[in-house]
């Protein structure tokens, strides 16, 4: 298969980027999208040019490293899959393919197609954890979790933090990511002691990072490789409102 590639190239965060055109040949049905870029890069290296920088790690759809907006689709045109799980058989021979990085002020371009998603790490640092007693391993099943709750928490925990929600959102909002991470822990008994603090802190951090607000376009859910439901966003809204109310009551009690 042959393709005409239109790839975003940018030397660093500060410099202005632009599209470069590349012709690529010798691609088979079995090449994944990232393998196709590998072939391109090998060609570029041999001819003494700078290879295209893109993020990748596990290449089996679970690490959340790969990104890319392919022909206008976040993680490519395949539903519920990361870019690494996209194969060239999804494209027609000779097709022109445009590749762009995630676009968000909170995700500055590092180089070419790689963006800095540390903003997500800072949201997690703000409250995406539970404090546990260290020492000997606790007895199994010492904390009972209902099957329905465990399933629901797992649905939220399926988030791999790739940033597709931000990339797909017309407002570059990180609500789906934050909602998944907050709700994952807020649903479980282990997450209860820090529930309000977690909710307030993670939302505050999300806002501080410069992500947009949710206007319910539902583009995030459609782009999410793990099909995380926007219902979690509503649940986050609910958790935040009640956390704020309790925090207010708390302050008026302590006079703080």
């Amino acid at each position, binding site marked *: 298969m042959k393709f005409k590639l239109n790839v975003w190239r940018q030397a660093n965060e500060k410099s202005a980027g632009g599209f470069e055109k590349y012709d690529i040949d010798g691609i088979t049905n079995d090449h994944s999208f990232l393998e196709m870029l590998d072939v391109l890069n090998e060609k570029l290296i041999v001819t003494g040019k700078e290879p295209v920088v893109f993020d990748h790690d596990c290449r089996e759809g679970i690490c959340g490293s790969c990104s890319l907006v392919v022909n206008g689709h976040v993680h490519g045109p395949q539903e519920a899959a990361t870019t690494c799980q996209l194969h060239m058989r999804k494209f027609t021979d000779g097709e022109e393919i*445009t590749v762009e990085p995630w*676009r968000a002020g909170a995700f500055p371009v590092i180089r070419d197609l790689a963006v800095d998603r540390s903003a997500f790490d800072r949201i997690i640092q703000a409250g995406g954890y539970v404090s546990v007693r260290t020492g000997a391993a606790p007895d199994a099943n010492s904390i009972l979790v209902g099957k329905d709750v465990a399933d629901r928490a797992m649905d939220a925990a399926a988030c791999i933090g790739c940033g597709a929600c931000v990339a797909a959102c*017309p407002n570059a909002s990180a609500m789906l990511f934050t909602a998944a991470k907050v709700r994952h822990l807020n649903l479980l008994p282990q997450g209860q002691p820090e529930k309000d603090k977690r909710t307030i802190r993670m939302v505050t951090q999300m806002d501080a990072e*410069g992500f947009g607000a949710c206007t319910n*376009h539902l583009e995030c859910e459609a782009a999410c490789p793990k099909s995380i439901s926007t219902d979690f966003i*509503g649940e986050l*809204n609910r958790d*935040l*409102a009640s956390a704020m109310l309790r925090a207010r009551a708390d*302050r008026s009690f302590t006079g703080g």
Partner: protein
Amino acid sequence: MRIADKREPTEYEACMSTRALSLTHTTIGKKMVMAISGLVLFGFVIGHMLGNLQIFLGPDAINGYSHTLHSTPILLWGARSTLLVAIVAHAVTAIGLVRLNRAARPVAYVSKKDVATDYAAKTMFLSGITIALYVVYHLAHLTYGVTKGLGYQHLPVDKNNWPDVYHNVVHSFQVPWCTAVYVLAQLALSMHLYHGAWSLFQSLGLNHERYNETIRSSAVAVAMAVCVGFLAVPIAVFFGVVK
């Protein structure tokens, strides 16, 4: 030995005293302001539509309704002040959010395609501005009657000395451009209400997977009903049912 006169705040207290402790400082809180103020305005729109439909009961019904409102200041100014607060909150918050959202993506996509969103969701700001401009014109036209000379007859009062709403409406809808502006505004309003109606459940966290479909289809039904209710009047005037 130094005795601390004030202990250090605990991590919990430090977190709880952040600026964002006020809900409306968060983007989520701002969306809740949009939802609640929108809900108030939604209620007004439905009340207004029902009020308008009294035109089908004849001049005395609708003019009498107007007279009742105007002769009950607590009702009139109660409604007006509530609406004013809701409009200011809705508009100011919307402008803030739009600015924030535009700033959140400084470099635009070249190829990005929409997958899930719809026209109503994408044009909320535009339809909102359309409605706002229409409201200004609408107040100037019917409430204050300052648009005389634009081609339609404006009668301040009827034979009972009540505001002659009936004939002002009929005369206005006999002017084609006036009807066109009205229809355009109603289409913008219905789209705005459709997205707002289901979106507010999400923003307020009142969503649930069991009810989401019902909420979405009810939003379509309510928006359509409002559209039909408001457009029934010019249609009736056009066909001479109301004259």
